C-alpha cells in the first residue's frame, strides 16, 4: 500500500506547485484537481481494504522512528469523507477565493492541510499520527489568521497554542505508553501494561490531546473563536473535518483500551460520558444565544462533537458498545457533511451581503434558492429529522445512550435525558438560523454580483445529495462503510447493527416530537428575547481562557520579577561593596593621603611604625601560643 503515501504527498506537491501558477484561476483549478485526485485516491484506498483486511506498511525507518501507515475500514472512511469535503470546498473556493484577499496563501495551506489530514487518518502508530497532527495544526492555523485583523489573530493564537498543547499532550502520552510497556501502534488493543497507573495517565493525556482538537469541554474555547473568523472554506473544513481528526483519535484511543473490556482504566467511560454530555449541553446552550451565524454554527460543532464523545463514552461504559462506536463514526461522517454545507451556505450569503448577523438578514430565499434548499436539508440533517442523515447516526447514539441508562446509574440516566434536551435546543437554534436568514423581510442590501455562482452552488448540492442518499439508504451506508469501520475500530460484536431498523415508528415519533418542541421553543425564545440574553462570562469558558492568559502573564511577570529583583539586589550590593572596598584601598594606599596621614604621621613614620607593629604582632602571637600551649 505504498501508493497510499501518494495520497499524502500529492497535496503537498500541489501546494509546492501552486506558486508556479501566476494566474489565480490556474491555481484554483489546480486546487480542485488535487482535491479530485485525493478523492480518487481515497476511493482506491477504500476499495483496497474492502475485503476487510488491514494493510500496514512501514516506510524506511530506523531504530528511532519508523513511520507506519495503516489502512483499515475506519481510516478509509474518514479519509474518504475528508477528501469529499475537501473537493467540495475546493470547488467552492474557485469563486470564493477570487473575492478574498491573499488567495494564494489560503490555497497553499488548504492543500497542505489536506495532506496532513490524510496523513492523520492513514497513520499506523501514534508517532506518525502526531507528525501529521502537528502539520495539520500549523497549516490550518493560517486559515484562522487569514484575515489578519485583531479578532482573527487572537483566535489564531488560541487555536495554535491549544493545538500545540494538544501535540505536547500526545507526545507525553506516547512516552507514557512506551514506558508503561504498551505498543504505540494504532488500531490494536493494548496488552496488559506493566504499569497501569502510567497507562491510565497516558490515556488521559490522549483524550485531552485529541479532545482539544475535537472541541471537547472544557478545552473547546478555541473553537468558537477560530471557526467564525476563518474564510468560509476554512470554517467549513475546520468544523467539518479537522475536529474529526480529534474524534478519530479518540476512537483509536478507545480501541487502545479495548473499549473498556479489559477493565484497564475502569473510570474512563464515565468520565468521557460526562465530558460528552457537558460538551453537548454547553455547545447547544451557547449556540442558542448567538446572533452571528458562523458563531452559532461553531457552537453547534461543539455540541455535535459532544454527541460523538458521548457515543465513545457509552461504548466505553458498555464495553465494546457497538451502537456507541458506530454512532460516533457515523455521526462524524454526517456532521462533516452537514456542518460544511451549512458553513458554505452562510459563506455564500456573506459573500453577497457582507453580513453575518442573523438579526440583520432575512428574506434571502428568493435570491438564493439553491442555497436555501441545501441549507434546509443540512439543517434537517443536523436536527435529526427522519429521512436525513443526522437522524440515522443520532438514532444509533440514542440507542447507545438508552443502553447505558438501563444500568440505572444516575449519571447515565441523566445523560440520556440531556440527549433529548439537546435535540430540542438544536432544533430551536436551526429554526432560528434558517428562519432569520431566508424568511421574513429582507433587511440588507445585496452587493453587486451577488448570487450563487455555479461553483459555489455545485459543492453544496453535492453535499446535499450525499446527505439525502445517506438519509434514505441508511442500511446501505451502514453496511458499506460504517460496519467495516466499526469492525476496524475494534468492536467485534456487530450483530445489533446488522439487524437494526431505523424507521421504527417510536423512534421517528420521538424525533418529530423533539422537533416540534424545538420549533415552539424558538417561537417562545424570539418572543421573550431570550436569545439576546447575555450569559455570565464564566459560562462560555472563553472568559476562562482569558483568565488563564491573564494568570499566565501574572505568573510570568511574577517569576521574572522574583528572579530579577534578588539578582539585581545581589549585583548592586556586590558592586557597592566593591566600590567601597576600592575607596578603602585608596585610603590605605599612602600615596593618596591615607588614613595614617591623618594621624599626623608623615609617610615614612607610618611605615616604620607598621614594621614595628608587625614585629609586635609576631611577638604577641608567640606569647599567645606560649601561654595557651597550642
Amino acid at each position, binding site marked *: 500500500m505504498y501508493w497510499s503515501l501518494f495520497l499524502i504527498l500529492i497535496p503537498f506537491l500541489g501546494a509546492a506547485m501552486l506558486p508556479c501558477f501566476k494566474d489565480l484561476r490556474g491555481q484554483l483549478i489546480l486546487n480542485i484537481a488535487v482535491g479530485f485526485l485525493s478523492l480518487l485516491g481515497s476511493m482506491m484506498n477504500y476499495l483496497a481494504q474492502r475485503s476487510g483486511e488491514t494493510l500496514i506498511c512501514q516506510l524506511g525507518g530506523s531504530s528511532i522512528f519508523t513511520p507506519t501507515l495503516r489502512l483499515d475500514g475506519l481510516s478509509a472512511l474518514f479519509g474518504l469523507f475528508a477528501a469529499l469535503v475537501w473537493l467540495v470546498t475546493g470547488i467552492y473556493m474557485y469563486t470564493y477565493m477570487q473575492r478574498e484577499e491573499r488567495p494564494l496563501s489560503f490555497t497553499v495551506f488548504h492543500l497542505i492541510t489536506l495532506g496532513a489530514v490524510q496523513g492523520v487518518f492513514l497513520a499506523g502508530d501514534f508517532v506518525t499520527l502526531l507528525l501529521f497532527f502537528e502539520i495539520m495544526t500549523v497549516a490550518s492555523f493560517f486559515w484562522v489568521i487569514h484575515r489578519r485583523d485583531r479578532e482573527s489573530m487572537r483566535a489564531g493564537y488560541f487555536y495554535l497554542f491549544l493545538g500545540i498543547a494538544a501535540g505536547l499532550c500526545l507526545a507525553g502520552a506516547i512516552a507514557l505508553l512506551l514506558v508503561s510497556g504498551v505498543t504505540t501502534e494504532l488500531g490494536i488493543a493494548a496488552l496488559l501494561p506493566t504499569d497501569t497507573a502510567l497507562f491510565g495517565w497516558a490515556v488521559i493525556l490522549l483524550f485531552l490531546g485529541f479532545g482539544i482538537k475535537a472541541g471537547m469541554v472544557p478545552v473547546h474555547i478555541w473553537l468558537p473563536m477560530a471557526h467564525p473568523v476563518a474564510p468560509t472554506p476554512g470554517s467549513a473544513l475546520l468544523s467539518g473535518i479537522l475536529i474529526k481528526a480529534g474524534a478519530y483519535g479518540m476512537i483509536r484511543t478507545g480501541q487502545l483500551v479495548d473499549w473498556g473490556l479489559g477493565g484497564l482504566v475502569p473510570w474512563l467511560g464515565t468520565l468521557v460520558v460526562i465530558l460528552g454530555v457537558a460538551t453537548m449541553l454547553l455547545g447547544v446552550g451557547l449556540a442558542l444565544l448567538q446572533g452571528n451565524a458562523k458563531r452559532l454554527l461553531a457552537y453547534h460543532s461543539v455540541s455535535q462533537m459532544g454527541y460523538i464523545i458521548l457515543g465513545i463514552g457509552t461504548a466505553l461504559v458498555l464495553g465494546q458498545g457497538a451502537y456507541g462506536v458506530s454512532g460516533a463514526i457515523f455521526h462524524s461522517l454526517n456532521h462533516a457533511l452537514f456542518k460544511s454545507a451549512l458553513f458554505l451556505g452562510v459563506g455564500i450569503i456573506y459573500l453577497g451581503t457582507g453580513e453575518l448577523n442573523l438579526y440583520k438578514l432575512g428574506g434571502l430565499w428568493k435570491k438564493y434558492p439553491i442555497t436555501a434548499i441545501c441549507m434546509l436539508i443540512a439543517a434537517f440533517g443536523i436536527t435529526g429529522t427522519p429521512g436525513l442523515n443526522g437522524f440515522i447516526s443520532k438514532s444509533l447514539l440514542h440507542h447507545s445512550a438508552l443502553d447505558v441508562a438501563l444500568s440505572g446509574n444516575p449519571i447515565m440516566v441523566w445523560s440520556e435525558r440531556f440527549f433529548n434536551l439537546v435535540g430540542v435546543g438544536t432544533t430551536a437554534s436551526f429554526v432560528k438560523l434558517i428562519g432569520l436568514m431566508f424568511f421574513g423581510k429582507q433587511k440588507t442590501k445585496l452587493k453587486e454580483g451577488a448570487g450563487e455562482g455555479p461553483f459555489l452552488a455545485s459543492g453544496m448540492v453535492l453535499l446535499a445529495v450525499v446527505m439525502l442518499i445517506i438519509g434514505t439508504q441508511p442500511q446501505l451506508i451502514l453496511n458499506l462503510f460504517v460496519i467495516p469501520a466499526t469492525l476496524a475500530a475494534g468492536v467485534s460484536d456487530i450483530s445489533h447493527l446488522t439487524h437494526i431498523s431505523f424507521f421504527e415508528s417510536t423512534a421517528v415519533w420521538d424525533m418529530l416530537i423533539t422537533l416540534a418542541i424545538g420549533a415552539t421553543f424558538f417561537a417562545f425564545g424570539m418572543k421573550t428575547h431570550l436569545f439576546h440574553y447575555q450569559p455570565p462570562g464564566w459560562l462560555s469558558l472563553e472568559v476562562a481562557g482569558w483568565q488563564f492568559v491573564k494568570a499566565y502573564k501574572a505568573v510570568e511577570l511574577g517569576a521574572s520579577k522574583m528572579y530579577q529583583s534578588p539578582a539585581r539586589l545581589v549585583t548592586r550590593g556586590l558592586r557597592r561593596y*566593591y*566600590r567601597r572596598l576600592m575607596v578603602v584601598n585608596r585610603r590605605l594606599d599612602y*600615596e593618596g593621603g591615607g588614613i595614617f596621614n591623618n594621624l599626623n604621621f*608623615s609617610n*615614612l*613614620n607610618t611605615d*616604620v611604625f607598621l614594621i614595628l607593629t608587625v614585629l609586635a604582632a609576631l611577638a604577641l602571637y608567640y606569647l599567645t601560643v606560649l601561654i595557651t600551649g597550642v
Partner: protein
Amino acid sequence: MGEFGSRIVQNYPYVFALALFAIGVYTILTHSNLFKKVIGINIMEGSIYVLFIAAGNVRGGVAPVLDLANSDLVYVHPLPQALMLTGIVVSVSVTALSLALIMKLYRSYGTVDAREIARLTRLGNEVGADVTSGS
C-alpha cells in the same frame, strides 16, 4: 631587686643595646627632618653593634691577639668584632647614600622635612586628578 633585676644588671650591654634601639626608632618616628631620621637609623644600627660585641665579649677576656707565651689568656670572640667592622662599613655606605638622596630631595622640594615633602607629593598627585576605577 630580685632575680630579674640582677639579671638585668648582669646583662647591662643588652639593656643598653635595647635602649639605643628604642632611641633610634623613636628618633625615626618622631622627627620629620630627614637628617634626623638618618641619625636615628645610625643610632639603631649602633645598638646592633653593641649587641654583637657584647655577645662576643668574654668577661675578663683580652683582645684576640695570639700570645703563644701566655696560654691561660681568655680571648674575647673575634668574629663578632670582625663582622661589626663590616657592618659599620655597610652602615657608612647607607648613610652616604641617604645623605646624597636628601640633598637631591632638598634640591627638588626645597625642604628636608618629610611631612612637607609628603604634602608636596600629594599636591602633585591631586593635580594629576586620579579618578581610578576598577575593572
